[in-house]
């Protein structure tokens, strides 16, 4: 009797302890992978993407975790530094496969996307990249998704607005001479030409650290504007610094991956910039979008990374988590992909979007939300205007 009561006491203690634990701790764990450059000139992109995924995961965990069937699972995030290379991204996909991660947010750029697609396909992984490559996703890789609109969706409208604002008659579009650079720069160049702007495309070897010769070449052309397109933020910052030292007094453009803070820093502050126009991947001045920064600080206890890939990565993660719930599994990327295709494109911060990509890639797996156009003129920040892309096919 004595031993029985002791047994009963222990059982009660164990039951009450288990009840005190969060619901997900009793059940399972869902792993989400992040692939992106976490060091080097493109680190700002990778770190923002990582931050977005970790934030979405932390929010999900605060709410008890992701629902899979009748279980609530804790979301954990594993990341891998791709160093913005194809082989780094492929190695990262294999590393994540080794950790049994089937769902990946990323990679960030075109070289990585090219490297990761066949490997992830072979590993049975879903990817959600942010590359601006013309073949960022495609019908041969049905589990590859795209977390933002490509240049053909926003470039014509932004170029038109930039021309109207700054009366640009000539431009040099400068980018690295690989797919990560040429795929964006060539689309931008077509947009400038369509606006009857004299356009020169200038490509440099990726890994260049001293842009003095390129800057001299640009200065010889005497352009009204220089668009740094999709040059990594570190490269763009160095280039702008050297352009200004060389006496460039024209307009700076940035119609590519986020790199605004680096360019403003290199210029010595907004007040020293004559003119600057850039793409924001989201409409950063929408109140709902702004509120994400507040929530990020609240949940993560640190300020949010100053890079808009944060938003698109967080939105992609939330969509994947919803798809896991709809599919009832996190182990079968094909089922999750099928569920994802059936979900409406919406996000608590970014609002209503559309699934686009049919026209560009042959499949509607591009998650498109409104983007923004930032402007600085005569040393004054003129804000970010919203550009609706709901008509993107």
């Amino acid at each position, binding site marked *: 009797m004595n031993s029985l009561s002791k047994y009963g006491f222990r059982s009660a203690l164990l039951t009450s302890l288990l009840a005190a634990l969060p619901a997900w701790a009793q059940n399972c764990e869902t792993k989400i992978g992040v692939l992106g450059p*976490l*060091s*080097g*000139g493109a*680190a*700002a992109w990778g*770190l923002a993407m990582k931050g977005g995924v970790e934030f979405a995961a932390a929010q999900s965990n605060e709410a008890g975790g992701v629902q899979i069937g009748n279980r609530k699972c804790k979301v954990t995030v594993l990341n891998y530094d791709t*160093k913005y290379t194809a082989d780094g991204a492929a190695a990262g996909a294999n590393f994540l496969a080794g950790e049994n991660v089937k769902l990946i947010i990323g990679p960030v750029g075109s070289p990585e996307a090219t490297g990761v697609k066949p490997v992830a396909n072979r590993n049975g992984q879903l990817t959600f990249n942010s590359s601006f490559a013309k073949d960022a996703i495609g019908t041969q890789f049905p589990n590859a998704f795209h977390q933002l609109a490509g240049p053909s969706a926003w470039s014509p409208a932004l170029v038109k607005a930039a021309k109207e604002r700054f009366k640009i008659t000539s431009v040099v579009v400068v980018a690295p*001479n690989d797919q990560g650079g040429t795929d964006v720069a060539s689309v931008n160049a077509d947009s400038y030409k369509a606006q009857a702007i004299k356009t020169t495309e*200038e*490509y*440099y*070897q990726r*890994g*260049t*650290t*001293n842009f*003095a*010769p*390129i800057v*001299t*070449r640009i*200065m*010889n052309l005497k352009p009204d504007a220089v668009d740094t397109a999709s040059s990594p933020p*570190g490269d763009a*910052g*160095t280039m702008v*610094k*050297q352009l200004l*030292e*060389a*006496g460039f007094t024209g307009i700076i453009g940035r119609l590519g991956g986020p790199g605004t803070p*680096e360019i403003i*820093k290199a210029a010595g502050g907004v007040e020293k910039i004559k003119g600057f126009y850039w793409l924001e991947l989201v409409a950063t001045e929408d109140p709902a979008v702004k509120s994400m920064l507040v929530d990020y600080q609240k949940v993560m206890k640190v300020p949010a990374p100053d890079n808009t890939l944060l938003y698109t990565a967080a939105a992609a993660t939330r969509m994947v988590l919803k798809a896991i719930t709809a599919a009832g599994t996190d182990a079968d990327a094909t089922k999750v992909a099928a569920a994802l295709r059936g979900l409406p494109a919406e996000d608590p911060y970014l609002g209503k979007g559309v699934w686009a990509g049919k026209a560009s890639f042959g499949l509607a797996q591009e998650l498109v939300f409104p983007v923004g156009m930032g402007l600085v003129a005569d040393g004054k920040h003129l804000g970010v205007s919203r550009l609706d892309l709901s008509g993107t096919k």
Partner: protein
Amino acid sequence: MESFVSTGVIGLSLGTQYALLSLGFTLIFGILGVINFSHGGFYVLGGYVAYSFSHLAGVPFAIAVLLAALACAVLGYFVELLLVERHVNDHLTTMMITLGLYLIMTTGTLVVFGPEPAEFPFPVSGSFRAGGFFVPYSNLIVLGVCMLVIAVVYLLMYKTRFGIALRAMADDREVAIAQGLRPAQMFPMAFALATGLAGLTGALVTPILALEPHVGESVLAKSFMVVILGGLGSIGGATIAAFIVGIVEAYSSVYLGGSKGALTLFILVLAILVVRPNGLMGSEARKA
């Protein structure tokens, strides 16, 4: 015409930077027979030490640069003494040691300073202009300092007993030892001189370019190319090759574009190596 002159100045500036880096690289190979894969790491470290002193501790930039060179020299001295010395005749082992050291240095800076480029501007801004000709003051200062340091290295190597002893070790180690020179004393000093030069270059150059943990990789690649072109172990060869590379890089990039410029440079290096497989001033085989 102005652009032609500006490009020439850029080429000279690049040449002096490559010369400083390559001198250290070739000194270590010539004297110790070690291919130092951590050379780019000392360049990065020099940049971060100067950044820490000038931006975090408020030390004047010029003193921060000297302290960076000194810190890299001291670290290089102990690296040679403690890690390289006992394996100095084993090429494969020393390659692995220096490669491992580079990875440790890169990861160390990544952990301490973070992955994003540091905000480390050169203290002097603006450009010298005359008509269409321009050259940033920062480039002129770096050019001047690099030329001065190259001259000092030459004086050290050719006009002092220490330099003569180092060159004797490089020429024929056995004979030099027989003459009473002690490798255990000379090698750490040579290593310190080389890493100090790499640190000095990093401290001077990263403020006008970019400072981030992985920037040493491209620096190592460029140094390698210059040293191979000049002839492994040849101080004069490395200096000449550095200026050839700098000037060809500048003119080909300005007049042919970034992609074709890089291609031209590599084709030229390849052509020279076909004609002179041991480099411009390299000997057939390293004696020491």
